[in-house]
C-alpha cells in the first residue's frame, strides 16, 4: 500500500523574501505565532528551549516544532505549521472520507470529494485541506472555480509526505 504513494509536489510556496513565514500565515489566520529562526529554518520554541540552546556551543537541527524553511527565495511550510494555523483559520476546504486517501496519495481533489468550502473560492487561492474531523491533511490550491466542475483543487502538500520520507 505504502509503495504506491505518489511523489509529492514540491513543498515550495510563494512568499516574500522578508518575513516569509508571516506572509504565509496571514493568508490563513490573524493568529500571531512566535517563531525563532536558525539558518533558513523556522521553529516554534519556548523561552526555556532557547535558553538551553544558548548554553550549547553547536548548532541544533531542531529547536521545538519545525514550522518550515526558506528554499530558493520561497517559503516551504511544514505540516506541523499547517496543523497549527488550521485551528484558527477559516480558509479551509473540508473533504469527505472518500477523498482523504486520494489527497494523501498526492492526488487532486474533485468536486465529488468536497464537503464544504470556507473563505475564498477564486482560482489560485491556497486552502487548508481538512477531513471530516477538522484535522489538517495538507495544503491545496484552487485550480478551477467550483461552478465550472471538474478538477477543483490541486495538491500542494499533504500528510502522506511523512510516509514518503520514511521510504526515502
Amino acid at each position, binding site marked *: 500500500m505504502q509503495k504506491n504513494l505518489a511523489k509529492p509536489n514540491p513543498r515550495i510556496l510563494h512568499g516574500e523574501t522578508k518575513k516569509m513565514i508571516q506572509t504565509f500565515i496571514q493568508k490563513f489566520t490573524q493568529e500571531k505565532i512566535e517563531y525563532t529562526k536558525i539558518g533558513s529554518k523556522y521553529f516554534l520554541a519556548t523561552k526555556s528551549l532557547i535558553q538551553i540552546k544558548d548554553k550549547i556551543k553547536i548548532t541544533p537541527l531542531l529547536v521545538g516544532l519545525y514550522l518550515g524553511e526558506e528554499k530558493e527565495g520561497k517559503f516551504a511550510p511544514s505540516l506541523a505549521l499547517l496543523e497549527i494555523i488550521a485551528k484558527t483559520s477559516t480558509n479551509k476546504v473540508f473533504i469527505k472520507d472518500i477523498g482523504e486517501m486520494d489527497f*494523501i496519495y498526492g492526488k487532486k481533489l474533485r468536486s465529488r470529494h468536497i464537503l464544504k468550502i470556507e473563505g475564498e473560492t477564486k482560482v489560485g487561492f491556497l486552502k487548508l485541506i481538512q477531513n471530516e474531523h477538522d484535522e489538517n491533511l495538507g495544503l491545496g490550491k484552487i485550480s478551477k472555480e467550483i461552478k465550472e466542475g471538474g478538477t477543483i483543487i490541486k495538491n500542494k502538500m499533504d500528510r502522506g509526505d511523512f510516509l514518503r520520507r520514511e521510504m526515502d
Partner: protein
Amino acid sequence: MNPFIERYSQLGWDYTETKMRESLWVNTSKIRVEELKARLEKKRIILKKIPFLEKGFLVESKRFSLSSTQEYLQGFFHMQEAASQLPVQALQPKGLVLDMCAAPGGKTAQIALQAEAVVALESQQKRMQALLNNLERLGIKNCIAYNIDARKFEGVEFDKILLDAPCSGNCAKDRRWFSKQTISNFEKNSKIQKELLSTAYDLLKEGGEILYSTCSLEPEENELVVDWAIKNLGLKTMKLDSYGSEGLTQIFNKKLSEEIKLCKRIWPSQTQGFFMAKLKK
C-alpha cells in the same frame, strides 16, 4: 549446537523462537485512547492493552499497514515494540532530560510528553531525518535535537538521562542475527557503551538518574556494563517496578555486584529481548 543458544542456556534461558508482535503507544496529547480505538475499529484494526505498559497496545488484527492510516499520519500513535516502550516508563521523565541515542525518536517523543524539555542527540546523519520526521508528525514542541556523537556533547547538566545504547540487537528482532554476530562484536559494543555511560555520568546533576537500556541479551552489553559503572563511576542501581526478571549476578564464572539484581532482563517471549538498569548519581 549454536554457541549463542548454549550461552543463553548457561544464563538460564532455554531458547525458543519468538515472533515480534506489532505494538504502538497512543499520543494522548493529540487524541484520547478510546477515541483512537473506536476510529481504528471502524477500519477493522483491533488494539489490545498491554498490561505492563501505561499507553501501549498490541495490534490484535489489521487489514493493512497501520502506518498508512490517517490516524498514524495525524500523529495519534507511534509504532514501537512493547519492550522498547519500557525504558521511558521506567525513567519517569521530569525536568530537563537528555536522550543520548535518540533516532528514530519514539522514546524521545515519549520523554517529551512528560518532561519539561528534552535534548536529543543522534550521531548518524542518515538516522537523524527519521527522528525529525517523527517529532514533527507527533507534534512534539519541547525538544532540541543535535547531530552529534553523545560522547562529545557538553554544556548542560540534566535531571534525567536515557541511554538506550547502540547494541548487537537480539534474535527475536532479526532472523539472521545468529549468523551476523560474534562475541568480539559484544566486546566492541561494550567499550562504546561504557564510554557513553561515563559521559552520561558527567552530564548528570547530583542526585539525577540514568536509565540504561539495550535490546541485547548479551551480558557483555548489559550486566557487565552496569557492574563496571557501579565500580568505576560510583553509580547506584535503583529498584525498577517493571516487566521482566532480575538482572543476573552470576555471569558464566564471574560473580557480579548483588545490586545488579535490581536491573530488569527480558528474555524473548511476549516481547523481544531487552535489558534495563536505573542508576542514580
